[in-house]
């Protein structure tokens, strides 16, 4: 199945004033779209052309010859997931099953926040910070560039994009401020709960 650009789950201005409409115009309309277009061009006529997206990612991970396909396919997955992790008037403390699990696995919400923000702030260069399920336990991991935890048998529950294009128009060099805003104002905990 060729790669597709899903609809954004909200209007491009829905995350204002935290993430600007202009950022989403480029991030969704140009960057995400380019990964879809480039990925489809690269898989056309190959054994990957009719595979589900997750299969393409798993089969090309770690193969230098297939880096182009992997990078574009994984970035399609990562961005589609990232949009769903945010909503207008989101952020703050979670409720429901994820709240209990965060308390038991991290020792408290604040500990989770510290570790999640630290992972995002210390991912040097471009990449992502994730909350994942490792078997039955919550963990925080960071990945470089397009890399995705599903290739390590981890189940993503939440992600924040720390490529500079995700925040540069709104926050410039202040990545920690973007991460704080993401946690305090944007996380869609309903979506995270639905992934548990």
């Amino acid at each position, binding site marked *: 199945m060729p790669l597709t650009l899903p609809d954004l789950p909200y209007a491009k201005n829905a995350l204002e004033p935290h993430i600007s409409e202009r950022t989403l115009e480029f991030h969704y309309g140009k960057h995400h779209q380019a990964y879809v277009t480039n990925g489809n061009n690269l898989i056309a006529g190959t054994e990957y052309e009719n595979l589900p997206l997750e299969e393409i990612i798993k089969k090309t991970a770690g193969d230098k010859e297939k880096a182009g396909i992997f990078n574009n396919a994984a970035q399609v997955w990562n961005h589609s997931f990232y949009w769903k992790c945010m909503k207008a008037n989101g952020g703050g403390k979670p409720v429901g099953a994820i709240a209990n699990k965060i308390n038991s696995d991290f020792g408290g919400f604040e500990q989770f926040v510290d570790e999640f923000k630290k992972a995002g702030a210390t991912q040097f260069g471009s990449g992502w910070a994730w909350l994942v399920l490792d078997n039955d336990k919550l963990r925080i991991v960071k990945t470089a560039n397009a890399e995705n935890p599903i290739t390590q048998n981890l189940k993503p529950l939440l992600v924040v994009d720390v490529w*500079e294009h995700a925040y540069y128009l709104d926050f410039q060099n202040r990545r920690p401020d973007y991460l704080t805003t993401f946690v305090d104002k944007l996380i869609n905990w309903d979506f995270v709960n639905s992934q548990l």
Partner: protein
Amino acid sequence: MTHELSALPYAYDALEPYIDARTMEIHHGKHHAAYVNNLNAALEKHPELESKSLDDLIKNLHNVPEDIRTAVRNNGGGHWNHTFFWNVMGKSSDKRPKGDLAEAINKNFGSFEQFQEKFSNAGATRFGSGWAWLVVNGQTGLSVVSTPNQDNPLMDVSEVNGTPILGVDVWEHAYYLKYQNRRPDYLNAFFNVINWDAVSENYAGAL
């Protein structure tokens, strides 16, 4: 030795309209400054490295204690690369190389246009953050390479080696305020602000 951020060799708006003043101000005053501060912070843990020059540190990362090796690689690299980058831009008497460097470029790449295409392509295809370089390796050999993040071809840990004589920053912070996702447009614009006199000096020094 405490490492220091040098002043830009020109005004923030000197590279307008190709690279805007706001980008230069944040790039030099925030990003480059942070690399210098973080490098100094890492080195505080190992006073025995105080006497080592930045070149010595990044060329011999295997000699840097493991607990700060990544910090020195990233922040020492960031300091070296940005200092180098500022110096290969600015006002030049020509829009193209001349003399020995022009000859070497023609000999190694076929023509200036072919070099420009290869260099721009190296920058455009560096996935994520990094740099594209023109390096001298061997007596007169020039080649175009790229490195991820803040690595550079002088580092013992780098997959590609040589002495850089020209480099372009393709981290998104280098161009996002003005060019957003259009990295190829930024790379085209970069060719209007290369200081070929400085690149020629680098070339002579690398031989």
